[in-house]
């Protein structure tokens, strides 16, 4: 355990050296000590680009904005299968094209002004009009004010998923007067981002104290917060910390919550620390390009089948660590319509050999491209890729690894130029319809060189699933879709890595949410 004396001695020693270094005639004023009371420290590997909710679309941004802002609808705890009222209640029309938003009473922003329909209209129109990263969430949606308490959302097409999209922190409601005063507009000329990175303009339980995109975000309680559940911690420090250090920090009491421990790290934690391990909603998959211009090998159906059977899924799951699970289908396990373990693809050495022989593969090198700088819930793509390479080698398939930073590699992936690719899909909203993009001609389908009309079975299943219906009907439709995809599709769902949230035992209310990872305001103490 930490010896406080030795740590103090280290600090003093270091300070002595620093003092010696400083050529400062330091005029020491009275020691104005810094705040320490009721602070909670949360360690996170940052992927933060902005705190402006209408621009951010990163998991860390969602954590921050969930604490600073409120949305029209929200989820309770970790349950993302049904929405609950947030700032408003929403009623959908039968055709899922018109949604009536009715604002609740008594919601005020941090400057004390009430949340109005104008704020809702401005905030949502700003998301759409700025054409920032999250604007596709509301594509085809128009927002109109009906009266001071009511707003109408109209979708061009049937949009049953919209209520599940609205809780996304990117669709937070901002204080329109403040934002407009600081350069906010509802088009691309908007210049309020700088302001929103230094101040918050929301009605959430916290306000932004300081923000440094690379090191830390500090939140303090919003005294005007109108919700019933006032936050326990008056100051929140969300720090950018590498996962190995997160482990040390939480073991040493330097932090109270660690969000990015790998399975290996989480299983080695000492007593006094609680770990919540749940499979995350991220699905890591392998894609085999069906475009013969890209690769004549990967576009061979027998070869695709051989690869599916050559992979030792259990081995990959154990590599991903504690709490990880095999992705039975492309839809993650906690969503409606997820596949059961009976329908998962399994390792089949002899079947693989037969398929490989049938494919006419002659030992050519296949290039596996992957983003080398991505580490998802503690699972490093580089590690995973090496294991896949090794497994395929055992099956007689020669794989050449081509790592590149995601910035460079993503372009090739998006343009459908990768023969073999290792990627993941994180859901935009907790509804299986998000996964229809994997169908032929879908966004991800095209990345695998799989245009419309490539696979009639899958396309038919996808069309049926898109049509909607009752929950049971939809569940069946999506199961069928995924079975078809597993059978003939160019995607191989591999792993849902675990989300390990480690917290000091004194911290309560730690719950993983697939949309915003963790609700800071819900954290309590005992």
């Amino acid at each position, binding site marked *: 355990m930490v010896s406080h004396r030795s740590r103090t001695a280290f600090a003093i020693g270091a300070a002595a050296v620093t003092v010696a270094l400083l050529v400062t005639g330091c005029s020491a004023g009275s020691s104005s000590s810094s705040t320490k009371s009721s602070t909670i420290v949360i360690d996170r590997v940052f992927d933060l680009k902005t705190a402006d909710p209408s621009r951010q679309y990163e998991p860390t941004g969602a954590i921050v904005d969930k604490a600073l802002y409120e949305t029209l609808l929200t989820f309770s705890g970790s349950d993302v299968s049904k929405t609950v009222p947030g700032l408003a209640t929403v009623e959908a029309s039968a055709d899922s094209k018109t949604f009536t938003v009715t604002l609740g009473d008594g919601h005020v922003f941090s400057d004390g002004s009430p949340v109005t329909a104008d704020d809702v209209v401005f905030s949502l129109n700003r998301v759409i009009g700025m054409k920032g990263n999250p604007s596709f969430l509301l594509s085809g949606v128009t927002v109109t004010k009906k009266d001071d308490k009511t707003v109408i959302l109209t979708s061009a097409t049937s949009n049953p998923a919209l209520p599940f999209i609205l809780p996304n922190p990117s669709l937070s409601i901002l204080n329109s007067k403040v934002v407009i005063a600081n350069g906010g507009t509802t088009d691309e000329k908007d210049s309020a981002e700088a302001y929103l990175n230094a101040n918050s303009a929301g009605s959430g339980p916290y306000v932004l104290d300081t923000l440094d995109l690379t090191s830390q975000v500090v939140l303090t309680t919003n005294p005007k917060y109108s919700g019933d559940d006032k936050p326990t911690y008056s100051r929140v420090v969300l720090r950018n910390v*590498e*996962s*190995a250090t997160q*482990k*040390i920090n939480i073991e040493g009491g330097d932090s109270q919550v660690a969000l990015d421990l*790998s399975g*290996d*790290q989480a299983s*080695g934690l000492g007593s006094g620390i609680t770990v919540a391990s749940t499979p995350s909603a991220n699905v890591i998959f392998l894609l085999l390009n069906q475009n013969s211009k890209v690769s004549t090998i990967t576009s061979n159906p027998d070869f695709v089948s051989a690869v599916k059977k050559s992979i030792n899924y259990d081995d990959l799951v154990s*590599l991903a660590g504690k709490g990880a699970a095999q992705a039975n289908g492309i839809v993650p396990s906690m969503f409606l319509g997820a596949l059961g373990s009976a329908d998962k693809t399994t390792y089949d050495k002899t079947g693989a050999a037969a398929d490989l022989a049938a494919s006419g593969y002659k030992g050519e090198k296949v290039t596996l491209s992957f983003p*080398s*700088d991505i*580490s998802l819930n*503690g699972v*490093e793509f*580089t*590690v995973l*890729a*090496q*294991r896949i*390479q*090794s497994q395929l080698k055992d099956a007689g398939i020669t794989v050449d*690894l*081509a*790592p*590149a*930073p995601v910035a*460079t590699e993503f372009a090739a992936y998006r343009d459908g130029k990768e023969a073999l690719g290792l990627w993941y899909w994180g859901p935009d909203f907790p509804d299986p319809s998000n996964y229809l993009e994997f169908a032929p001609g879908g966004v991800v389908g095209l990345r695998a060189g799989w245009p419309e009309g490539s696979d009639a079975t899958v396309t038919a299943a996808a069309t049926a699933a898109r049509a909607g219906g009752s929950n049971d009907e939809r569940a069946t439709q999506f199961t069928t879709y995924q079975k078809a995809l597993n059978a003939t599709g160019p995607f191989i769902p591999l792993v849902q890595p675990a989300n390990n949230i480690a917290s000091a035992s004194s911290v309560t209310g730690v719950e993983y949410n697939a949309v915003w990872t963790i609700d800071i305001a819900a954290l309590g103490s005992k």
Partner: protein
Amino acid sequence: MMNTRIKRPRIHLGAWGAPLGIIGAVIALAWIVVAFLAPVIAPHDPLAQDLPRLQAPGGDTILGTDSLGRDVFSRLISGAGVTIPLALLLVVLSVLIGTILGSIAGFFGRWVDETIMRITDLVMAFPTVILAMVIAAALGASLLNAVYAALIVSWPSYARLTRGLVLGLRSSNYVVSGRLLGFSPWRSLWRDIAPNIIGPILVLASLDIGTAILLLSGLSFLGLGAKPPTAEWGSMVSDAIGNFDQWWLGVFPGLAILTVVVAFNFVGDALRDALDPKSATLRGGGPTL
């Protein structure tokens, strides 16, 4: 420090420089032998992931296993065959490019000299690693690309050294008398100047092998060098970042780098004592990482 001296290489074996140099040479040679024999002496296939993951040293693995169940010891010795030859290649290429450009600059002077020296200024204004990083990012991660990136930042020191030596020699007796006798400048460049600059260049180059290893493994550490699953020491160290509990993942490859670099630096230091007791250090030669 452009005030150069003309000295034919002289051998003075310092009382202690020589033994250190011999120790260095022995260690360096040992690593080179290991590099050649790695496939024979490695107890396991360095790429095979057939052992239990993250096993501590001892038992059937000398240095434990990594996060994919590969034998750290086997990877360590096969790593010698990855970094050392490339570092040597890098130094040889740097010396070639640097001395050629430096001789041209020093011998022909005027605008040729100005141009070449301004380019070295430009390259030297960048910190080595950051420039190499940008280049490696541009070329894509691979060890050979890391060598190219490192080459771009490492030739100027040779160019400057050579230019300084050539400038000093150009006005010296034998070159001047050669000119009076009507020999061509190329002849004097080759006959009179080359033998005189070999000593300092050799010293700088021998000290640079260590730098080259540090630079290449540093780039690999940042993910801009060796591609997985290559057993490269720098990337082995970076694998250790996520696995602090498994100290053996990082400690041994780091020690490997350290011993090789120290060995080459011992040799270089002894060579400096022997060939060029003063000038090499004064010109700011030596590692810059």
